[in-house]
């Protein structure tokens, strides 16, 4: 995290405010000790109240922003079973763009895909003929592209619920 440290210094008798840029940990056990005099040097430590006041007043206090999380919306019914996968970033409003394609057009997918920090996984659904599917496939958030086979659910099914922890995905209920 880069913070911009507002500094006071004297110049010909006048108080001048300048900005220095540091890579900082906002909270740690020791006081701020910049590793160098110039911008982008490291400054780990605790920001004391006067330092924080200057940073806040200067509009430079670092905030935890809206993470640039990628969202995917896959498949569905768009006049027929679609294989389109849309993507967008949750941090900024805007229209979706193409991410890739499911291995086949399906709707009634697991209502929420299961997701880890790196993968989105979709299961089941119905094809354009209305036939239920047992497909599990995944996408890697970091790179656009088409779905890759992951494995199979126990039997063909549609309209399941999906959710996940960082390590496990579950698919519940549905119609077989």
């Amino acid at each position, binding site marked *: 995290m880069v913070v911009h440290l507002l500094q006071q210094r004297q110049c010909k008798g006048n108080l001048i405010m300048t900005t220095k840029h540091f890579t900082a940990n906002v909270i740690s056990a020791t006081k701020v000790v910049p590793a160098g005099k110039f911008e982008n040097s490291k400054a780990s430590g605790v920001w004391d109240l006067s330092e924080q006041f200057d940073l806040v007043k200067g509009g430079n206090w670092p905030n935890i922003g809206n993470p640039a999380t990628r969202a995917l*919306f896959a498949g569905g019914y768009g006049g027929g079973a679609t294989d389109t996968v849309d993507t967008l970033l949750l941090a900024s409003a805007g229209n979706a763009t193409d991410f890739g394609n499911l291995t086949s057009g399906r709707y009634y997918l697991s209502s929420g895909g299961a997701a880890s920090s790196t993968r989105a996984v979709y299961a089941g659904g119905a094809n354009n003929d209305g036939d239920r599917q047992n497909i599990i496939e995944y996408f890697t958030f970091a790179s656009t592209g088409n779905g890759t086979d992951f494995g199979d659910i126990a039997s063909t099914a549609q309209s399941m619920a999906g959710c996940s922890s960082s390590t496990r995905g579950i*698919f519940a209920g549905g119609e077989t």
Partner: protein
Amino acid sequence: MAYVDTIQFITMASAGNATDFGNLSAGRLRTAGFSSTTRGIISGGMNSDADNQNILEYVTMSSAGNATDFGDLTVARRSMAGLSSATRGITAGGQIPGGRSNVIDYVTIASTGNASDFGNLTADAANVAACANTITGLISGGNFDGNPSRADVIQSITIASTGNTTDFGDLTVAKRHHGGASPAAASVQG
């Protein structure tokens, strides 16, 4: 054709077939799912008698087993979307008898209890999909009043507060019965 109560799981990091995890309290379809790093919650849906359900039940993600009662949605419905931050789970829209719902309700995932009102979608909608990070939830597509076939609308909410959705953008094509995914609750602790 059968409405099933089965819960299956996969290990995200390694491809393979799904394995039995446990069972819901009853067979239901068109439920919504959301999760924290520790709990998965299944909400609403429709049972084999075609009755919409207000059931919220949960599983502990790390240990296989049957679902346990969590509480109730504010409105029984099916074909909703589920999304969550690491702490708050949200169920949005859905099909109700005679129409669609604009209801968004929420629960605190770490505790149990009934859902509370969060706000409303821009219009009554069902068959929507959702995803989220720790801050923003998106609800997309679906059947909307005024656009009953399918919509390309993407709406957003701020998960930590309550309120109605606002316009975020559009899908590349109008669709319904799709799936949303994002690495939110799974990867980032709020």
